[in-house]
């Protein structure tokens, strides 16, 4: 037998040791993966195979007070692409041609970094069916492209009441952070304005989900767990569609007419109808309007820029409650009440209007809108003729009495604070006083002092006073009902998807205005005189229902006058309070009051026969 010599045996032993070492290494590595790091890899294995697909609930429907649908949902054909296909320029170009989009537009939609990188991105909504079929049939030419059916908002009444309803948009990072504990995720649609935003939680419903096992290609192998989404609740609004439409038309027509009659800059306005006994908003119109369906599938940056451009007059803004304006003479009833309630004037007080008033001294003359002068006036005729001199006098008396009485009464009537209407972004307006002026002019010490002229200006609704049309409508509602400020609201009731009522809005008292019954009656009488033989006489001539109201023409530096009219009717048992405001529309009596008449006509279901514009120079 030929035996191996020892050196070869030794070398075999060395090899043997090496084998032992290598196998030990493999075993240790195996242990570290399977025993030490088992949790980490088990989790990774689970997340590999398990996907949770959330199912969005059907969003609630919004009805008007008569059950007419204002917003519901409809299916939309959507083209969606896997974000990774952004490199596939040739395919994007081809798809773009088909969808009438530039590759840049598509890439822009794919680039969003906040969204899930594995989720398909919708790049076009409401794709025509033949195009969808083409893409499906040529799926090999369009890798990563899918056609889906998604539920989108539908607006059967087109742009009507758009400022009330609002629009939907993709949730942004800030909103995601704010709602961290809720089941929102990137890409979800949420209400961005109006009722859609205010009642997001009610309309949204509960998300469902499907937990599925997928294979490596993402194909669903089986369903592990499932929860059906819970449909959102429906909301019935206090809005009356017919009245809303008439209000929007009247407002739009008033603006068009103003523009044609010497006020070329008239381009925006607000009008609303409130039930003075409940605070229900029956109609709420803001001009210009926009089309909420532009937001379906995400608004293009070009369209967004247009909506936010000065030249388009900012149509997204609801001017009835997001903006505040100098109310001008529609504020005079507050001064009227303040003077009487504080005992500084009476109905026997006589005022002599010579067109110019020098009550604060010759150095500070102030003028009535009627430079020729109204002659001998009292409080009653002062209100119906809207004589400024009368109210300068009352204002000056209030100033001299001290204690910021006029501001106190303005606040009593709800000015300077939110009405708490169920809409987001409400303005509080502004009732100027000493403290405010001091703070406002912090950097200009010479302007910090409250001067008599400030109160005198405030008395005619000018100066630094700012009110929203909604506040004015609510204020006139309070005058109509004898002194109760009702909280204005749009929700009538909330219904389940099945139609069962789960919440009903009960009228809510914001405040009682502590005006004596006698003085309130006198104010109501004198506001009626405005319509009968005062500044709104021409506008309301021949109107079959008895209306009480007040015109206003507020001055804004560097702009044409803002036209106001606020009123209620019928005077004996008021059912409607109306406020109309046209930015740079001219005189309240000539532009706003005729519009209010048309709105009232619609409210009482009367034929609309009044004039579009009347001649009136009052302020």
């Amino acid at each position, binding site marked *: *037998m*030929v035996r191996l010599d020892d050196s070869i045996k030794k070398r*075999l032993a060395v*090899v043997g040791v090496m084998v032992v070492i290598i196998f030990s290494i493999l075993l240790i*590595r195996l242990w570290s993966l399977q025993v030490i790091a088992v949790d980490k*890899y088990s989790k990774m294995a689970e997340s590999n195979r398990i996907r949770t697909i959330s199912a969005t609930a059907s969003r609630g429907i919004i009805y008007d007070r008569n059950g007419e649908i204002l917003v519901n949902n409809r299916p939309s054909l959507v083209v969606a692409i896997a974000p990774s296909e952004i490199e596939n320029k040739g395919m994007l170009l081809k798809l773009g041609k088909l969808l009438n989009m530039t590759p840049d537009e598509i890439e822009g939609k794919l680039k969003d970094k906040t969204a899930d990188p594995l989720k398909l991105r919708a790049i076009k909504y409401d794709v025509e069916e033949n195009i969808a079929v083409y893409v499906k049939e040529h799926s090999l030419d369009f890798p990563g492209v899918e056609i889906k059916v998604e539920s989108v908002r539908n607006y059967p009444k087109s742009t009507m009441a758009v400022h009330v309803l609002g629009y939907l948009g993709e949730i942004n990072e800030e909103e995601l952070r704010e709602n961290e504990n809720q089941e929102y995720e990137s890409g979800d649609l949420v209400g961005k304005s109006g009722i859609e935003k205010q009642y997001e939680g009610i309309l949204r419903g509960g998300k469902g989900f499907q937990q599925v096992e997928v*294979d490596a290609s993402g194909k669903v192998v089986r369903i592990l767990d499932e929860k059906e989404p819970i449909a959102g609740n429906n909301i019935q609004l206090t809005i009356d569609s017919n009245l809303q439409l008439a209000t929007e038309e009247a407002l739009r027509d008033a603006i068009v007419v103003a523009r044609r009659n010497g006020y070329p800059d008239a381009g925006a306005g607000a009008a609303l109808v409130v039930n003075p006994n409940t605070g229900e908003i029956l109609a709420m119109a803001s001009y210009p309007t926009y089309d909420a369906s532009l937001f379906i599938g995400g608004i293009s940056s070009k369209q967004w820029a247009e909506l936010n451009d000065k030249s388009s007059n900012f149509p997204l803004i609801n001017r009835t409650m997001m903006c505040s304006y100098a109310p001008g003479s529609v504020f005079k009833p507050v001064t009227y009440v303040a003077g009487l309630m504080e005992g500084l004037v009476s109905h026997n007080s006589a005022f002599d209007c010579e067109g110019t008033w020098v009550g604060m001294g010759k150095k500070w003359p102030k003028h009535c809108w009627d430079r020729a002068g109204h002659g001998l006036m009292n409080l009653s005729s002062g209100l119906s003729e809207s004589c400024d001199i009368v109210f300068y006098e009352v204002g000056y008396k209030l100033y001299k009495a001290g204690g910021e009485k006029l501001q106190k009464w303005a606040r009593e009537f709800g000015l300077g604070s939110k009405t708490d209407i169920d809409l987001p972004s409400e303005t509080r307006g502004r009732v100027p006083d000493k403290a405010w002026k001091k703070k406002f002019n912090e950097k200009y010490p010479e302007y910090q002092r409250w001067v008599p002229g400030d109160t005198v200006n405030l008395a005619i609704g000018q100066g630094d006073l700012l009110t929203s049309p909604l506040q004015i409508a609510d204020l006139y509602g309070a005058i109509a009902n004898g002194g109760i400020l009702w909280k204005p609201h749009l929700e009538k009731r909330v219904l389940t998807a099945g139609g069962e009522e789960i919440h009903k809005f009960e009228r809510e008292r914001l405040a009682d205005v502590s005006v004596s019954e006698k003085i309130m009656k006198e104010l109501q009488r004198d506001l009626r005189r405005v319509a009968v033989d005062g500044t709104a006489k021409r506008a309301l001539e021949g109107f079959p229902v008895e209306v009480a109201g007040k015109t206003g023409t507020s001055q804004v530096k560097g702009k044409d006058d803002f036209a106001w009219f606020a009123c209620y009717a019928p005077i004996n048992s008021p059912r409607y309070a109306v406020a109309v405001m046209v930015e740079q529309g001219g005189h309240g009596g000539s532009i706003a009051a005729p519009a209010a008449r048309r709105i009232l006509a619609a409210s009482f279901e009367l034929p609309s026969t009044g004039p579009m514009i009347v001649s009136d120079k009052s302020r």
Partner: protein
Amino acid sequence: MKKRDIFEWIRLIDFSLIITAALLVIFGNLMVYSATHNVSQGSQFFYLKKQITFSLIGFLIAVCIVLLNYNWFKHYMMPLYVGNIVLLLLVLFIGRTTYGATRWISMGFFHLQPSELAKIILILTLSAFLADKKGNIGKISELFTVFAYVGLPLLLILIQPDLGTALVFLAIMLGMLFISRLRWQHALFILGTGILVIFLVFQFNLLREYQINRLMVFINPGVDPMGAGYNLLQSKIAIGSGSFFGKGLFSGTQTSLNFLPVRYADFIFSVVGEELGFLGAAFLLGLYFFLIYRGLAIALSAGNLYGTLVAVGVSSMWFFQIFVNVGMTMGIMPITGIPLPFLSYGGSSMLINFVGVGLLLNIYAHRFK
């Protein structure tokens, strides 16, 4: 036959090696079935049937080889060597090209992979070559002769290209050289040459893009988890999530849901790790360890130097393939397409492993001569 003769016969058979190899083959067929029974197209037994067929053919070949005397191969060293070269040249001209590599010659029902066969022929011929030197390669010139001898088939395999098999070639050569009392200085020289070659390969961009990617992934496993790093990550997830007891045979989610790439071939160890856990994987490594141990023991007890070298060659081949393949699935070796002996699906490789077992049994049986 007398009782004593039967006893003599039994002494000639290495039952432990037979049992080990049988267990590995059964293990392998089971895992191949587990990895392929849920294929979306065709029969769930498609791969298993083929693998069983190759196992049986392999078994027959092994029996044939056992019945020969391994020393017989020594005399046919030159024809074997030349035949090998011819086959490797043939594959370059008439071979089937898949994934950019020309490795297979179509033989009707199966595709012969000459590079697998070349491994065994290398072992047989290089053993004869080294045995002639009496296990002494003292002179550097002799070393160069060995390099040239191995280099020719190696080059042909690199042209295919089949980097994995080329590396196995080197491992076999080094293992056998080491046993042939390779001098330490020469070992250092080989090491230096190796480093130089690696340097030149990078310098002249001789690696293909996928190979560079694999190396990048090996160095930094976190890179590109959806691309080049995907296979490695999925393999580690499969093994790691297998835990101590495993998810159960046929119950691996990574396996059955296709997350594991080429799981019936290169990544079959990941299937073992996922479904049978540490227990199963360690048992498999134990079988392999015993296999290598038997190989080295047979090398030690071989009747002549030629037998020793052949046994060392076969052991080196298996050992290197096991280490690289298993290491690769766990991220401690770069990804190379080297099959796991007896486990990975593939006809040529299965047959060659049976040839290896046959040779070892033969050497064992002739150990007293």
